[in-house]
């Protein structure tokens, strides 16, 4: 049986970062990454942006060039999906039936796209967007302008709507909630983003209830709403979130439910087994101590760094500030902190001038902010959220006063 001192399951942002960090910390034991797909570690954000548009090659999306992994003595086994974990015998089982032993294990498999279950959801040309294969399948549809329906008004759906409009497609976004970005952004930002997309020619349907997909010759031809309305569609992109891939861990007895629970060192409840990234539920100091799962590059990276430190015997707790970004058209969206539990939302800047920020306060302290084309506020705001700064609300709402000069007296 093959074995390694550290076995990393999942070669995405978290898995790659953990391996690199182990070497950075001087860890000299063997490190193996088992990756379910055929690809070396790459950045996912470009998939719904410049990679999809053909403005960037896949090679430039690689987290490191192929030679780097060899130089660092990090072995990456591709097409190696893990189906079971035996924590007592310290081995995993691969889909091909082989076992692989480990000293320490890091689970970094992220999630898999949530799939619709309505009739017709398995028709051809109903896409999800999660990995390179998905992106390439969608990109192959982009050359000839068509009618596209995007299901889900979250970041992926909206970034795709922007890409599709850029390539001349007719785009309808169906969102089940009463506003886009409902799960992550305040209402003012949702309304602004909806207006921007509509100005770019995107049709946005809020409160849309999906009934089924209809097709011909096995491929989708239309999307039918519960109210009976039928929207013609040459292809459909669903962006309705992810489901954490943690079943083998939970089956092995790890605590969890929606994801796997980890402590401040990214350790699961199973000895010697760690988790990082989209699937790791943790108490976040920026979530008022609530359990959260964060689906972001920042969290995947910083949790991986935390886990690597613990594995290398240099444990330090996870305290990183959450931050996020998105690019749509010429809009640069940047967010820091987590706005859950805010009691006040302040708008600063000028929505008409397309440069503004929404500040989220709780008991006078800045806990999060969303910025649109407002990098100066974002940069200043990160430091203020980190330090739990109290703001003078009336000054903070004045976009002419630098944000860092709006502290409460």
């Amino acid at each position: 049986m093959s074995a390694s001192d550290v076995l990393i399951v999942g070669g995405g942002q978290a898995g790659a970062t953990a391996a690199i960090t182990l070497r950075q910390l001087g860890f000299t034991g063997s490190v193996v990454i088992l990756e379910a797909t055929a690809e070396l570690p790459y950045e996912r954000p470009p998939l719904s942006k410049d990679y999809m548009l053909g403005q960037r090659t896949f090679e430039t999306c690689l987290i490191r060039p192929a030679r780097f992994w060899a130089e660092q003595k990090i072995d990456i086994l591709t097409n190696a999906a893990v189906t079971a974990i035996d924590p007592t015998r310290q081995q995993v089982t691969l889909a091909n039936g082989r076992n692989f032993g480990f000293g320490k294990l890091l689970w970094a498999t992220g999630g898999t796209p949530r799939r619709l279950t309505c009739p017709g959801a398995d028709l051809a040309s109903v896409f999800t967007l999660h990995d390179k294969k998905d992106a390439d399948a969608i990109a192959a549809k982009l050359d000839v302008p068509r009618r596209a329906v995007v299901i889900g008004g979250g970041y992926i759906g909206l970034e795709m709507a922007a890409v599709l409009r850029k390539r001349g497609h007719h785009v309808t976004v169906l969102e089940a909630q009463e506003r886009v970005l409902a799960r992550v952004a305040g209402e003012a930002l949702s309304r602004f983003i909806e207006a921007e997309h509509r100005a770019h020619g995107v049709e946005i349907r809020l409160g849309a209830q999906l009934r089924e997909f209809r097709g011909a010759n096995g491929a989708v031809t239309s999307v039918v709403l519960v109210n009976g309305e039928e929207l013609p569609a040459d292809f459909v992109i669903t962006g309705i979130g992810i489901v954490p891939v943690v079943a083998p861990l939970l089956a092995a007895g790890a605590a969890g439910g929606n994801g796997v629970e980890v402590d401040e060192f990214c350790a699961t409840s199973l000895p010697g087994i760690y988790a990082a990234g989209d699937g790791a539920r943790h108490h976040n100091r920026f979530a008022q101590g609530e359990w959260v799962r964060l689906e972001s590059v920042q969290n995947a990276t910083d949790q991986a760094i935390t886990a690597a430190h613990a594995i290398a015997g240099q444990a330090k707790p996870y305290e990183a500030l959450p931050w996020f970004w998105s690019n749509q058209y010429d809009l640069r969206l940047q967010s820091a902190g987590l706005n859950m539990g805010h009691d006040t939302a302040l708008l600063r800047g000028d929505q008409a001038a397309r440069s503004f920020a929404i500040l989220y306060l709780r008991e006078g302290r800045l806990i999060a902010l969303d910025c649109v084309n407002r990098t100066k506020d974002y940069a200043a705001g990160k430091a203020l959220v980190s330090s739990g700064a109290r703001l003078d609300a009336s000054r903070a709402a004045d976009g002419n006063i630098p944000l860092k000069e709006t502290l409460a007296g």
Partner: protein
Amino acid sequence: MVDLVVIDRTGAEHKFAAAPGMSLMETIRDQGIYDIKALCGGSCSCATCHVYVDSEAPLSAMSEDEDDLLDGTSERQKNSRLACQVILAEGMAPLHVIIAPED
């Protein structure tokens, strides 16, 4: 090729020549130097590739976004740049680069 001297956070000096066309961030990262996180992948959306750059010739101009992001770091100096925004070009003067402390 562009000649580079990069000082990492341990103080170690890395001397190498890099092909033009890539960003300074990608060049440093691909060289196996660990300290550049570059979380946003070079889209000028974070400040995790902050470096201090000296060169005998002027570098490309700084965008407002880069300037704002650098302003948000506590370690800014007059030769601060985001490495993802410095593109290596044919015939470029040698660069002396120090990776800024983690913010």
